[in-house]
Structure formats: structure tokens, C-alpha cells
């Protein structure tokens, strides 16, 4: 009983996170200005990390947690570089 509940919860959680990624994607395509697109990309990185954690629970493999850490690191670096670029017109001064 509780295990079929857990399986249903995992599928529902993945669908919800995918829905969130879809919302961010729409904002990134539509976003009126460049900062909206950067913000949407950052939100998509976070959602992708959450999706990786759910896949990790679903498959029972700890490797996905390390993959999620790498995604979070890349998201930070990407958003930081893009903000610096929008502010100054160059990434490294």
C-alpha cells in the first residue's frame, strides 16, 4: 500500500517538476528582456537539479546526487557570468 503510494508520488513529483521547467522555458523564450531570460535559465537549472534528485530516489543510485551538485555548480557559474556580462559588457575584467 505505502509502496504503491510512493511510486505514484515519485511519478507525480516528476510531472510537477517538468511542469515547472516548462513554465521557466516559456518565460525564457518569451521574456521581454535579457535579465528575464537569465533568471529563467537559473530557475531551470534549479528545477533540473530537483528532477535529478527525484530520478536518484526512483533508481536508488547515489550517483545522481553528485550529478545534481555539478548542475548546481554550473548553474551558479553560468548565471554569475551572464549577469557580469549584462552589467559590464565583458565577463573577465
Amino acid at each position, binding site marked *: 500500500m505505502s509502496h504503491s503510494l*510512493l511510486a505514484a508520488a515519485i511519478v507525480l513529483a516528476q510531472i510537477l517538476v517538468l511542469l*515547472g521547467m516548462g513554465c521557466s522555458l516559456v*518565460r525564457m523564450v518569451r521574456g521581454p528582456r535579457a535579465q528575464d531570460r537569465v533568471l529563467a535559465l537559473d530557475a531551470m537549472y534549479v528545477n533540473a537539479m530537483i528532477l535529478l534528485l527525484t530520478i536518484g530516489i526512483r533508481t536508488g543510485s547515489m550517483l545522481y546526487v553528485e550529478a545534481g551538485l555539478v548542475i548546481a555548480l554550473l548553474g*551558479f557559474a553560468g548565471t554569475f557570468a551572464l549577469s557580469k556580462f549584462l552589467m559590464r559588457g565583458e565577463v573577465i575584467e
Partner: protein
Amino acid sequence: MSHLDALPPWAAILVAILMLLGALFACIGSLGLLRLRNFYQRVHAPTLGSTLGTFCMLAASITCFSVLHGHPIFNEILIGVFLTLTTPITLMLLVRTALHRDHEEGSDDVPPLPREQ
């Protein structure tokens, strides 16, 4: 779903509730990013996903793997610490960038710069 059958019922229900909460928070945050009207309102929405959503999901992951392996596993704490440190930095930088760009364009949506004394 062979490995998940090893979870006792209380752990299965706890993991299910935490996962649903985390996914719901992430979805609400992204929905706010889509629905709110201007950039300075929108920048608040995704932080819901990157704080509460991530922490619920990390708690679910820690519970699941600790119960499965039989001893406490805290690898996920790293992600939590890292996100707590980096999210305010990136979002503050992004908002300062947006403010700078709006001031350069002379937009009416932002308050004027304080006058230099």
C-alpha cells in the same frame, strides 16, 4: 521498484510526502516566474524552488538513502549548503544588473538614483 520495497512503511510515506512538497514548491516558483508582471516581482518567485523546494527534496533523498543503506548518509547536505550560499549572490547581482540597465535607459519603472551630495 525492487529497491524501494526495502523501505519500511513510515519511511515510504515520509519520502512520498517530502517529494510531493518539494516538487510542488518548485512548480509554484516557476509558475510565479511565468505569471508575475515585471522583472522585480518575478525575481522573487524562483527562490521558493531553490530554498524550500530543494530542501524538501534533499530531506526526502537523505531519508530514503539513509534507511536503505542502514546508516546515516549526508552527501546531500553539500548541495543545500552550496545553494544557500550561491542563490542570494547570483540574484543580487542580477537585480543590480537590471537596475543598472534600467537607469541607463532612463526607464520610468524604477526610482531615480539618489543625488550625490
